């Protein structure tokens, strides 16, 4: 950063923004307009700014973001579907001075891994859980997730989610916020630049709390899945604003008493 660049015509340019060292040169494989890549950027920018690359260990379970370790230039572990917070617990317990985060989808965190999620937070594991709620199983081709909204069409709810058959969308973040082990719980998004800036603040706070051994920080990002939702990226943003945020309102669910 802040390198000077001299052009042929003598103009001097100052570099004010560049790819953080914490991101590799590998191009994202995510579909165009997918929120995953934006959240990756935010996480790694914070790691860069806090200068914690050598301390941060990430866990990426099965889901579209399982290859997060290709992009994040930090030590990382892939985890089985649903087990990211257990894997993160294992890492954090033996390396308590490192900063550990898991990065989990809604299928991962709120269906197959519900037990691990609840118990990890309940123990107040001193980690950051990043929860990407896109209301669908992206990786496996757009099946219904525990977070899929009533009436929402997916490949396993082809006539729209029928809550009498499939139950209601699980607001697991509200549940997690009730647990005494949770220190900071917030619901954010990346659907516009302002939201991205807010998420970045939340991630920064979460890492700082972890440095102070405060307990579990939990950040839900209500995100999109253009491919699974069968919408253009622009349409997904409208759907987020008009529908998703009604059910999953953005904002803090639990903030430390300071």
């Amino acid at each position, binding site marked *: 950063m802040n390198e000077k660049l001299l052009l042929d015509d003598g103009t001097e340019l100052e570099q004010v923004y560049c790819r953080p060292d914490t991101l590799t040169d590998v191009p994202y494989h995510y579909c165009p307009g997918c929120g995953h890549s934006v959240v990756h950027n935010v996480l790694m920018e914070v790691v860069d700014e806090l200068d914690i690359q050598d301390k941060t260990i990430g866990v990426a379970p099965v889901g579209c973001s399982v290859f997060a370790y290709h992009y994040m230039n930090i*030590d*990382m572990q892939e985890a*089985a579907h649903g087990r990211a917070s257990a894997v993160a617990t294992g890492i954090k317990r033996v390396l308590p001075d490192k900063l550990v985060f898991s990065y989990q989808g809604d299928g991962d965190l709120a269906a197959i891994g519900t*037990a*691990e999620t609840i118990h990890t937070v309940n123990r107040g594991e001193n980690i950051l859980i990043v929860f990407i709620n896109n209301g669908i199983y992206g990786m496996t081709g757009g099946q219904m997730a525990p977070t899929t909204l009533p009436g929402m069409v997916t490949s396993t709810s082809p006539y729209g989610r029928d809550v009498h058959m499939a139950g209601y969308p699980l607001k697991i973040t509200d549940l997690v916020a009730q647990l005494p082990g949770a220190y900071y719980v917030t619901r954010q998004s990346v659907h516009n630049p302002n939201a991205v800036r807010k998420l970045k603040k939340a991630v920064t706070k979460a890492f700082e709390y972890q440095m102070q051994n405060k307990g579990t920080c939990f950040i839900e990002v209500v995100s999109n899945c253009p491919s699974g939702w069968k919408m253009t990226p622009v349409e997904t943003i409208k759907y987020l604003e008009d529908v998703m945020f009604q059910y999953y309102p953005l904002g803090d669910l639990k903030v430390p008493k300071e």
Partner: protein
Amino acid sequence: MEKEMKTEEPRLMKGNEALAEAAIRANIDAYFGYPITPQSEIIEYLMREVPNRKDKKTIVLQAESEVASINMVYGAAGAGARVMTSSSSPGISLMQEGISYIASAQLPCLIVNVVRGGPGLGTIQPSQGDYFQATKGGGHGDYHLIVLAPSSVQEMADFVFDAFRLAEKYRNPAMILADGALGQMMEKVILPPDGGLPKTPKPWATTGKTKDRGHNIITSLFIQPEEMEKVNLQLQKKYEEMQSEVRWEEFQTDDAEILLVAFGLSARICQKVVDLGREKGIKIGLLRPITLYPFPYKRIAELSEKVEFILDVEMNAGQMVEDVRLAVEGKVPVYFKGRMGGMISTPEEILQEVEAIHEKQNVLHD
């Protein structure tokens, strides 16, 4: 060398507790587990003892399930820790997905299975019904654990050291396959020396990416088939190298005309059968595999050249007997004697079986 190090007075201990004490002395960094009979004494002992050892920084955590336990083991092992879990049959079944991931990511760790009778919830009584699961992989994909089968409380303790030594040497999960009786019974044991197992460097571990190296990745995902095949070939090569670690024990095989093959507790019982038989003038010998993977195929094949028949004795419906038959390749008849569901054959029952087969064989030869 092991003998020299054993300078301590013998203590009277339960198998599970001797194993737990050995784990403390092996300086494990972490234990993650979930209670299940007949092995809960392991986590109970660790929870009770570790806080009293001011020099130990061992993490002992009761997880919410065996699924969580094995994934905590994965994370900690990937972060370079010496880590273990323990359970009994149903719990080990729950761990299989995680064990497969650990084998693929090549993480050293110890998994203890104090086997009980199954299938299903089964019984809490001792069994050897998990032989297939332990030695043939257990979870999905082509992989093997290193499997050690103790037959005494002494070995419950000693094999903790051996298992970690092998696991770390090969970057492979190791299993101690015991049974409920070995876990519960009390015997004299000379414990391995405290701190007697040096830590090995793990430059591949996720300990935080420093400037002088690239980022370390622990993964079992190799999406390109070309790459996945390469990983598999490397694993197979490793399993081939691991064959040199095969261990077994023999009793009175020099002049044996009848060979018993048995592991773990069954081998203890068969030693008695050898004695009883010889009192009656029947020349019985015993081979006891100590490592179940790798398996002593070669030695069993050699011995089969000199005996009239082989009787394989297990506490199951006949699992290891398939490996014995593979070793023998039909050169001599291989018979099986076993009881299931937590029942154990007595030495007299087994000797009767030997005598009956012996008679039948002689009729055939006349």
